[in-house]
């Protein structure tokens, strides 16, 4: 009966302007009906040549360029570059500045995860969680604005310290935010985690095995959802992360739902870290370091990496020692590797799952295209 019938594969072009590709990623999907046979990501729509730009900037000028590398967590970008340069120059950072960095990094992680939470819900068709998440994000941004006057590209963590000290009203405001934040995360969980539709959409979708995750260089929450306990804050502690008590959530299925749980847990853990940092922070101290415009680190090369909200963020800096500009700055973002592994994950799933998987991996395009 069905012998005469045949199905034909067809190609769907998803992106670069598509509501749910988180920026400008493009997928060429080969589909059989609704089922995906193969997916090929096409990137480069946001390739802004940041690495080339950095080669013609002084070290100090590189920091604002780094901001644009991963705008959801600009603080991390500042931090990773500052860390690399400090390693090159053998610079020490004052105690208070380190604490300020940690506070900002963790708050930024919360803000970034909130964007992820909102867009994930949005991609699965629920609009309301998106607006709820952005409501809390605004509170975090208020704190950043208070500190450095910017909402998105902060340019706050500088080489050798931070740009300026926090205003006195920062800490009460921050504590106020932390106090209510846990209850808000409960709200988020109430509307999505306990929703059978949401669970059905994410369970056993896009399963990433630990072997595959490590082989493809997947990092951060996506790696930990596959059952690999690897967090640079614990395993390769930078700054002063070895002084705080926090858990690393790990789950073992590696599907979209686990990646979701991990990130939700991480928000709570980050709040814990901020709380501890505020308690331990020395009450005063110098936080800035005056650096000459002709700052030249000695000859050398270094790859420094930190745990960003999207995985391992690294930067390779090579200095010749005789110019004030770096010879080469190579940036590495977690999303780059997570996007690489996506074609493997989406095979055999439906077109709606592409969206779910992409959201759960928390891919953001500037990190991929640079």
């Amino acid at each position, binding site marked *: 009966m069905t012998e005469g019938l045949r199905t034909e594969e067809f190609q769907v072009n998803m992106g670069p302007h598509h509501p749910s590709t988180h920026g400008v990623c493009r997928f060429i999907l080969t589909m059989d009906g609704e089922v995906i046979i193969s997916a090929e990501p*096409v*990137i*480069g729509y946001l*390739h802004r*040549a940041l*690495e*080339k730009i950095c*080669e*013609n*900037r*002084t070290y100090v*000028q590189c920091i604002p360029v780094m901001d644009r590398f991963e705008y959801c967590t600009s603080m991390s970008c500042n931090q990773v570059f500052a860390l690399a340069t400090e*390693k*090159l120059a*053998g610079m020490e950072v004052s105690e208070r500045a380190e604490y300020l960095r940690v506070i900002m990094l963790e708050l930024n992680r919360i803000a970034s995860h909130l964007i992820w939470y909102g867009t994930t819900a949005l991609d699965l068709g629920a609009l309301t969680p998106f607006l709820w998440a952005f409501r809390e994000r605004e509170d975090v941004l208020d704190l950043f604005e208070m500190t450095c006057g910017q909402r998105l590209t902060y340019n706050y963590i500088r080489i050798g310290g931070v740009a300026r000290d926090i205003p006195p009203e920062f800490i009460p405001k921050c504590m106020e935010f932390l106090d209510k934040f846990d209850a808000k995360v409960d709200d988020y969980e109430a509307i999505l985690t306990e929703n059978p539709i949401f669970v059905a959409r994410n369970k056993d979708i896009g399963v990433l095995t630990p072997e595959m995750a*490590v*082989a*493809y*260089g997947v990092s951060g929450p996506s790696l930990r959802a596959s059952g*690999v306990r*690897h967090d640079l804050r614990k*395993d*390769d502690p930078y700054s002063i992360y070895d002084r705080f008590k926090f858990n690393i959530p790990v789950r073992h299925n590696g599907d979209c739902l686990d990646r979701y749980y991990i990130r939700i847990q991480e928000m709570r853990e980050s709040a814990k870290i901020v709380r501890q940092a505020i308690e331990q922070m020395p009450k005063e101290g110098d936080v800035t370091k005056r650096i000459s*415009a002709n700052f030249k680190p*000695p000859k*050398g*090369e*270094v*790859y*420094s*990496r930190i745990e960003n909200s999207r995985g*391992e963020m*690294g930067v*390779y800096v*090579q200095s*010749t020692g005789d110019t*004030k*500009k770096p*010879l*080469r700055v*190579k940036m*590495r973002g977690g999303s*780059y*590797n997570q996007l*690489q592994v996506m074609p493997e994950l989406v095979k055999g799933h439906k077109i709606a799952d592409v969206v779910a998987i992409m959201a759960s991996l928390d891919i953001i395009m500037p990190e991929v*295209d640079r």
Partner: protein
Amino acid sequence: MNRDELITYLTEKFKDKIELLDTGRAEPFFLIKRENLVEFCREIKSDLKLEMDYLCNIGAVDTGERFEIVYDVASVENNIRFDFKLVMEYEGAEIDSVREIWPAANWYEREMWELYGINIKNHPNLKRFLLPDDWNQGNPMLKSWDAPDFIRMPEELQ
């Protein structure tokens, strides 16, 4: 394995194949030979004491005189990390793909091919992906690269 142990272990294991570079207090940095690349990578991945299963980053560097290719590798299992690089001339710039060893290398190598014009041997998918499809202005990351609408930041702004 701490930093010193790692350096001793690696220099003993690979003796004349690698050379330690001085990079201050950062992670150990080695120089390897281009022809040993694949063999070296395979060794460090399969060695049970190292098990460098995680490729952090591959970056090409144009120093103005020659190319350097930097590999940053880590081990999730043993929690160690080091870097190594290889050096080659502009003429006949070509390296072997390490994609078989670390699948993550795929895009990093593709990017190198596209932006620097370094040929990757045994890479199955050398296609343009960062630059526009109709790009015809060469390899923009080279230090000597220039184009009509490419404006350098003037010195006085720095």
